[in-house]
């Protein structure tokens, strides 16, 4: 099955524009309020970098570079690791794109956990990413659903990692912004693949 990286990038960028206000508000409750800016800004820059690369760089390659190099906050470079691993995996195979994407996402999750040391249940983007990665073999739609459910579950969690861990119980009731961002990402992947 083919996988249109560019379509994912453009849809994801649009989704981040649409969700900017919501993500900002979520990070204001639990963190320092910049997650919406970080995600939207990174995606805008990634689109520009991709277009300037004129075919020389893949869409996920552009995403990875921009998020690793330019985006601030804790989430920026962590997402950059995910995108870079996916880009590598997609580069490395001509055959099964779903499998390659799944391998890349899995490697990205592993890198994020090596670096950020968060487990499922710590109320971070890992809570959406880990179930999504597990569901990819069942298809992108399944992965998107799993991500969304994971993100929803963070609303009941107390944060044990990141800035939100300083504010204790007060974050409960709304989901973790990073996890919501991950759910957004998997939804755009599924949409771009026409699986939704």
């Amino acid at each position: 099955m083919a996988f249109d990286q560019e379509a994912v990038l453009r849809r994801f960028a649009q989704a981040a524009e649409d969700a900017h206000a919501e993500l900002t508000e979520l990070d204001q409750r639990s963190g320092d309020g910049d997650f919406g800016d970080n995600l939207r800004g990174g995606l805008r820059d990634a689109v520009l970098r991709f277009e300037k690369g004129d075919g020389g760089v893949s869409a996920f390659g552009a995403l990875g570079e921009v998020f690793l190099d330019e985006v601030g906050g804790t989430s920026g470079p962590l997402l950059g690791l995910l995108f870079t691993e996916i880009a590598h995996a997609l580069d490395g195979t001509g055959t099964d794109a779903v499998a390659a994407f799944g391998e890349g996402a899995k490697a990205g999750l592993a890198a994020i956990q090596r670096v950020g040391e968060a487990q499922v249940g710590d109320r971070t983007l890992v809570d959406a990413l880990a179930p999504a990665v597990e569901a990819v073999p069942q298809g992108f739609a399944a992965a998107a659903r799993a991500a969304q459910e994971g993100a929803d579950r963070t609303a009941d969690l107390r944060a044990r990692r990141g800035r939100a861990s300083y504010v204790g119980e007060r974050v409960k009731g709304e989901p973790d912004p990073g996890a919501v961002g991950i759910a957004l990402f998997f939804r755009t992947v599924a949409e771009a693949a026409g699986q939704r």
Partner: protein
Amino acid sequence: MSLPFHPADGDPVPPALRGFARAHADLVELHEKPAHLVARHRAPARRVGLVSGGGSGHEPLHAGFLGRGMLDAVAPGKVFASPHNKQVLEASRKAAGPAGVIHVVKNYTGDRINFGIAAERLRLEGIEVRRVLVDDDLATESDETATGRRGTGATVVVEKLLGAAADTGLGLDELAALGAEFAAASRSLAVASRAQTSMHTGRPAFDLEAGELEYGVGIHGERAQKTIDRPGTEELVDRMLDELVAGLPEGPEEVLAVVNGMGGTTLLELYGLHDLVAAGLERRGLTLAGELVGTFVPALDMAGFSLTLTWLQPEWKAWWAAPAVTPAFPRTVEEVA
């Protein structure tokens, strides 16, 4: 606002890096965008590059320890803020030896994440990376939090010993294991009689009455868990030594001591403190086998000092004595005479 003699506006770090690189142009090279510094010289036998970094405001740490016998590259963040992973990445690319790179990381969440991301990127590029985590601050020892002890004064000890060990041509895993041993054998404790000047308000970052002492303070002006009435200096040193010795794991009887100024403390005080430390260790039956007195890991201009003790294994002594040709590490016994 800012410190009294910072630039009127803007980030004080870039001009300081330029001034530093200018003053030590024979030893280091500054790269901007992203900011990192690289040592100009390294021992021919060294196979592993040593990289450190962290927030600025702790000078001479880390850039002052660039050079033969210590670090190969450093990534300086903004004041009290972790460097960006790209700085660490660039520093590591330049520092990497044939056997890879070691990151010496002080235990703070931001530093862990940014060095970690750089490590992931380096691995993707085929560069092997290991981390040596410095977590010596006894004041943050607690069973309740997962974050562990902060990294403070022992950093200079780890960077010195590891640098000398790396110069003998040891490999990546051997050095990573040694670095972990150096850190595990070290504990520090810091006190302050005046907070550092806040970069935001231009006034002390927290208030202390005359005669009060912040006991167990961090290097970013985190307040300690306790504020005590300042005891006599002899009594204070005694209490700190007691806690340090009790807080250290079992070790040999030889110890290395660092009497470190927090920024606004005079050498007259630090050397007087060292006299008390030496006497106190002797009274406890310990042999002072290495020592370092001065301002090496300050918290901007905080008035205070930290004591670090490191159990010194017999094999480590030669590493402590080996010369370090850097802007700030003092001459060692070996290169004198």
